[in-house]
C-alpha cells in the first residue's frame, strides 16, 4: 500500500513538473502571439467596415428590373445585415483580389485577376471588366455578368430573368484564376521556395542551417508520428512525399487564412474535395490483395456477416475520404464564421464593455484558430496515413 502511494506521488510529481513546464511555455507563446494577434484582429474591422460596401455593390446589378427592388432594400442595410453580408462575402471566392474598399470615395484597393471561360472557345479577359459586379463584361461578342459571386451568361443589357429566387441564365464552364486559385499559386510558390531553400542547406553538411533547422523537426514529426505508426516501417517511404506535401499545404493555407489578407482556400469545398480525391485514388491504387479481401470478403467472420459487411465496407471506402473533405471544410469555415461574427459583435454592441468583451473573445478564438489550423492539417494527414496504412497492411495473424 505504501509502495503504491509512493509510486502515485512520484507520478503526480512528474506530471506536475511537466505540466508546469507546459504552462510556462504556453504563457510565453501566448504573450508573443497576443501582440501579433492584436495587430491581426485590429486590422480585421478595418477590412470589415471597408468591404461591406463592396458587397453592396457586388450584389446589386443594374439594368435588371428585379435587381432594382433588391438593391433598394440594400439602401436601408442595417449594421447586422452588413456584417452578415460581409461574412458571406468573405467566405466566397471572388474574381479579383481586393484588399479593402474606401467607403467614403467608393474606391477599391486590390488587383483584378484573369477570367477564363470555356464558352464558344476559350474566353480570357480581366475581371476588372466586371467593375466589381457593376457592369456587364464583353468578350468576343459574348456577354457575362457577375451575380452572387458567380459568372452567368447574359445579353448586352445584362438581363437576368429570375424565377422564384433562382437565376436561370446559363453558367459557362469557369476555369478562372480566382482569388483562391491565385492564393494557391502564391502559397505553392512560397512552399517551394521555403523547402527548396531548406533542402539546399543539406548539401553543405548533414546538419542543417537556417530555416531547415525549424522545418526539419516538422518533417521528422510527419515521418515518425504520422507515417511510420500508421503505415508501418516497410511501406511508409513511398507515401512520404504526398503526406508531407498535404500536411504543409493545408497548414500553410490555414495559417494564411488567418491573416487579414482574407485568403480562405480550405474553406472552399472544391479544394478539400481535390485533396480528398487524391487521397482516395492513392489509397485504392496502392491497395494490396489483402485490402480488397477485407473489403469484399472479410476473413474471420461467418458467411452471412461477410455478405452484410461487403456493401458496408465498399461504401466505407467512399465515405472515409468524404468525411475527410467535409471535416476540413467545415472546421475552417466554422472557425472563420465564428471569428468574424465575434468581430462583428464589437460594432453591434457599441458599448465599451460589450465591445471589449467580444474583442477578448475574438483574440482567444484567434489563438484557438491557430491551433485548429495545425490540428486540421495534422488530422487530415494522419487519417490519410491511416487509410494508406489499411491499404498496404499485411495481416500476418490470419
Amino acid at each position, binding site marked *: 500500500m505504501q509502495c503504491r502511494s509512493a509510486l502515485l506521488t512520484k*507520478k503526480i510529481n512528474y*506530471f506536475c513538473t511537466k505540466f508546469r513546464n507546459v504552462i510556462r511555455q504556453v504563457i510565453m507563446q501566448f504573450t508573443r502571439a497576443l501582440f501579433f494577434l492584436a495587430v491581426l484582429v485590429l486590422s480585421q474591422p478595418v477590412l470589415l467596415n471597408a468591404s461591406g460596401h463592396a458587397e453592396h455593390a457586388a450584389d446589386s446589378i443594374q439594368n435588371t428590373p428585379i435587381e432594382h427592388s433588391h438593391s433598394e432594400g440594400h439602401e436601408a442595410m442595417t449594421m447586422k445585415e452588413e456584417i452578415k453580408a460581409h461574412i458571406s462575402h468573405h467566405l466566397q471566392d471572388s474574381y479579383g483580389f481586393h484588399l479593402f474598399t474606401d467607403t467614403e470615395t467608393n474606391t477599391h484597393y486590390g488587383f483584378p485577376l484573369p477570367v477564363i471561360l470555356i464558352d464558344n472557345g476559350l474566353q480570357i479577359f480581366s475581371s476588372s471588366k466586371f467593375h466589381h459586379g457593376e457592369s456587364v463584361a464583353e468578350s468576343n461578342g459574348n456577354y457575362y455578368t457577375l451575380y452572387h459571386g458567380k459568372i452567368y451568361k447574359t445579353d448586352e443589357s445584362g438581363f437576368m430573368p429570375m424565377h422564384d429566387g433562382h437565376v436561370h441564365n446559363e453558367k459557362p464552364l469557369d476555369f478562372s484564376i480566382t482569388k483562391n486559385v491565385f492564393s494557391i499559386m502564391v502559397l505553392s510558390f512560397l512552399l517551394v521556395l521555403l523547402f527548396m531553400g531548406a533542402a539546399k542547406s543539406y548539401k553543405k553538411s548533414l546538419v542543417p542551417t537556417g530555416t531547415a533547422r525549424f522545418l526539419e523537426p516538422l518533417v521528422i514529426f510527419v515521418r515518425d508520428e504520422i507515417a511510420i505508426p500508421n503505415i508501418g516501417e516497410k511501406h511508409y517511404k513511398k507515401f512520404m512525399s504526398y503526406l508531407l506535401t498535404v500536411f504543409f499545404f493545408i497548414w500553410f493555407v490555414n495559417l494564411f487564412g488567418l491573416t487579414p489578407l482574407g485568403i480562405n482556400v480550405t474553406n472552399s469545398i472544391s479544394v478539400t474535395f481535390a485533396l480528398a480525391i487524391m487521397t482516395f485514388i492513392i489509397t485504392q491504387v496502392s491497395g494490396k490483395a489483402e485490402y480488397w479481401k477485407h473489403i469484399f470478403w472479410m476473413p474471420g467472420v461467418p458467411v452471412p456477416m461477410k455478405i452484410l459487411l461487403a456493401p458496408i465496407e465498399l461504401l466505407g471506402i467512399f465515405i472515409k475520404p468524404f*468525411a475527410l473533405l*467535409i*471535416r476540413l471544410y*467545415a472546421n475552417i469555415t466554422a472557425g472563420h464564421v465564428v471569428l468574424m461574427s465575434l468581430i462583428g459583435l464589437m460594432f453591434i454592441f457599441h458599448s465599451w464593455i460589450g465591445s471589449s468583451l467580444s474583442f477578448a473573445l475574438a483574440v482567444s478564438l484567434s489563438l484557438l484558430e491557430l491551433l485548429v489550423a495545425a*490540428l486540421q492539417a495534422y*488530422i487530415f494527414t494522419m487519417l490519410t496515413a491511416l487509410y494508406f496504412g489499411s491499404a498496404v497492411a499485411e495481416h500476418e495473424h490470419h
Partner: protein
Amino acid sequence: MEIPAIVGAGLVVIGAGIGIGRIGGSAMEAIARQPEATNKIQTAMLIAAALIEGIGFAALFAV
C-alpha cells in the same frame, strides 16, 4: 406536428459533443495515469474525435 430537420441535426451535434467530451476527459485521465504514454493516447484520442466529428458534420450538412 412535424419536427424540423435542424432539430435532428442539433441532437446529433449534442451527441457528438458529448462523445468528444468523453473522449477528451478519458484521454486526460489516461494521460494523468500514464504520462509516459501521452503520445499514443493523444493520437488515439484525435482519431476517435475526428471520426465522431465526421458524424456531426454529416448531420449538419445533411440538413
